[in-house]
Every structure is written in C-alpha cells, then in structure tokens.
C-alpha cells in the first residue's frame, strides 16, 4: 500500500508521519500520532465529536484527509491546557457540570474555542449557532452553553 508523507504542527509541535493515502485526519491523529482527543462518533460529518481547528478554522477531522493538511497548524482539545493549567473553556466546562459521558466534550470545546477566538463576547444565540454542529446525546446543552458564556466572561475580565 502506497505510503505518503504528512507533516504539520499539532498543538504547536512538529509532527511528521508516513501514512496510507486516503487516511482521514481523525485516524491519523488517533492511530498514528496518538492524540485520541478527537472522537469518531459518526464518521459522516453529523455529530461534531471529531472537530479540530485547522489554521484557525473549525473542521471535521473525520471527513478531512490527512495528506491535505500538509503544512497546516492543527489544534485539538488535548493541547489547550498550558503547563497543567486548564484553558478557561476547560475550567468553565468543569465548573458548570457541562460534561456527562464526555464523548462530545473535546469537539464542543473546539467549536467553542473558534467562536471565542473570533467573537470574545458572544451572545447566547451566537453560542448556540457555534455549537450547532456538535451533538450531545446526553442532552446537556444548557450547561454547555452556560460554560461557554462563563468562559467568555472570564476571558474578558482577564483582558481588562
């Protein structure tokens, strides 16, 4: 089977691998690179559990071929905490009981991070829209929305 090289930064560190052509970014991250924070929930682009940030944009790693990401900067939830200190979104999800089974959580946090990166003080409607591609089947949406709003407030207070 033909192997192709892929090279990108993952959470700030350089990664280079030889993978089978046609491998999804989700499988490359999970099986080759060992970052299992993006989850495979549907592999159809429907659930959002595999969400990652590629060059600042929210993407579904299950529908993205890894070899199309050469040179990209990729962020996943496993890379958010710095020096053991949780990112404000992680802190807010923890404090607001915004996790139940936890399977959707890494994808939710990615979608929320892209929102706050572009819109530091979102309205509730903007949060709902930003999370609209991410399914939580434990149906804990309300605490998740509150966690994102809380994280936004915490960010703006830190900035002030």
């Amino acid at each position, binding site marked *: 089977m033909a192997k192709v090289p892929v090279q990108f930064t993952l959470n700030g560190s350089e990664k280079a691998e030889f993978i089978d052509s*046609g491998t999804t970014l989700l499988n490359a991250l999970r099986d080759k690179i060992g970052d299992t924070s993006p989850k495979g929930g549907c592999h159809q682009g429907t659930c959002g559990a595999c969400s990652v940030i590629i060059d600042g944009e929210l993407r579904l790693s299950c529908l993205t071929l890894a070899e199309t990401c050469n040179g990209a900067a990729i962020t996943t939830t496993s890379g958010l905490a710095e020096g053991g200190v949780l990112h404000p979104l992680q802190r807010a999800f923890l404090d607001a009981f915004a996790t139940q089974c936890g399977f959707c959580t890494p994808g939710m946090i990615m979608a929320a991070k892209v929102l706050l990166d572009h819109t530091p003080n979102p309205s509730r409607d903007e949060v709902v829209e930003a999370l609209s591609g991410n399914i939580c089947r434990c149906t804990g949406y309300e605490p998740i929305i509150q966690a994102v709003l809380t994280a936004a407030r915490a960010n703006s207070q830190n900035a002030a």
Partner: protein
Amino acid sequence: MALALQTFATAKDANGALKAAGTRYLGGGTLVVRAANEGDVSVSGLVRSTDPALSAIDVGGGKVRIGASVTMAEIARHPELGALAKAARAVGGPAIRNMATVGGNLFAPAPYGDFAVALLALDAAVGTDDGERPIETFLAGRGDSRAIVTSVSLTLPRADSFRFLKVSRVKPKGVSVLSIAVVLEQAGDGTVSSARIALGCMADRPVRAKAAEKALIGRTLDPDGIAPALAAAGEGTAPITDPIASAWYRAEVLPVHLGRLLLGLA
C-alpha cells in the same frame, strides 16, 4: 484496494485522472469521504485539484463567478454576496460550512444540497472545462457527469427579489424537511411579472415548481393572489421519504411554507 488520493495542479489534469474506474472527485470531503467511511467500496480512488481558479470569487457588473472549491463559509462572509449568505448558512453547522463546497453541493442528494436549490432559482450556469450549462440541465444529468465542475456563475439578485427558506425540525441546524428558493420580479402595480421557484427534498435533487411559477404571473402577493400557486406547488414533484419526514408530509407542508415565504412571513 485502499483509497488513494491524487492531487493535480490544474482541473484539466484532474479531469484526466477521473476517467479511471472507481475514481471520484474530492471537494470538501463531506460527500465522498463520508461514503468511503460508511463502507462504500465502489469508491477506490480520489482526485483533487489545487487550481487557484477553483477557489476564486469574481464579482463584477452585477454578476458573480464562484469557483467550485469555494466553501459555504466563504460565501456567507463575502461582503458582496450578502444575497446568498442565508442560503450558504443553511448548509450544515460551522465546521461543515468551512468544508462543504459550491461544486459539491450540486451533487448532494436530497435531503442535502440546500445551496443548489438557491442556485437553481437564481438560474446559475455551471461551468466545466467543456463550457457552461444551465443549472437545470446540469442537475438533470448530474449522475452521468464525469467532468469536474469548475465554477457556477449567476446574476446577483436584488435583495428584495430573492427569498430563501430552509425548513428543519432542529434549530438552528437541522437536516431539511424541505427548502425553497424564489426569485420574483414585480410590476409597478405589485403584480408578479416573473417567478422562478426551486424546491429541495421534493425530488432526489433540486427541482423547479413550474406550475406554481406560472400561477403566480399577474397575481399579487396576498393570500388570495398566491392561492392558485400554492395549490399547484406540488405538481410534478416526487418528495423523498427519509427519517426526517415522509413524502406525504413533505407534500402536505410544502404549500404552507411556500405561502409563508411568498407572504413575507417566513
């Protein structure tokens, strides 16, 4: 056989590679990678092109040419494509809109392909290396298409002449029960002088509601004026049945939603 991707600098070269059996074109991946993930073993090879022309948006003289690789998100945020923003935002969630392309949307089977419904109402022209074709002709034969779509071109509608509605059960993002796009011109007395109505989910691909279009001509946009058009809305349609809704349900609610759109209530 594994799934292998070939990348070409030009659409022309990619076209050549697409001739191999089992090969599909990779746009945003939301259709073809999804199919492969679900075990569709008929897809054995993927082809893509990084041709910059495929990613360009050219606006001028009231017209726009949108490269086939342009994403829904790029359309939704483009300052000169405000008229199309609502239809572009109707597709998927934020991540899907960063991936799903204009070209791919033309091939999306119902209940997907909401943006193509808008393009059909807007009478877009679909470009390939062989030249441009009217979208209606293109959609009718899309299953046999072996040439890469390179662009869609259209005349930008005036803000008040184009209306779009996607009906879904889950807000703000849900799969379509149906979608409707309407381009209307009105005479000075308010009567309709021309109408193009396109429907999503009322067949396996976007279709025109030609009987309803005809029934609107010369009528005013009030409940009595649009009644004949609503009565004719389902003519010639073959709605899909899927987990979102049955064909019966779609046929029942089509006139309701078309009525709301025409009366400005949607």
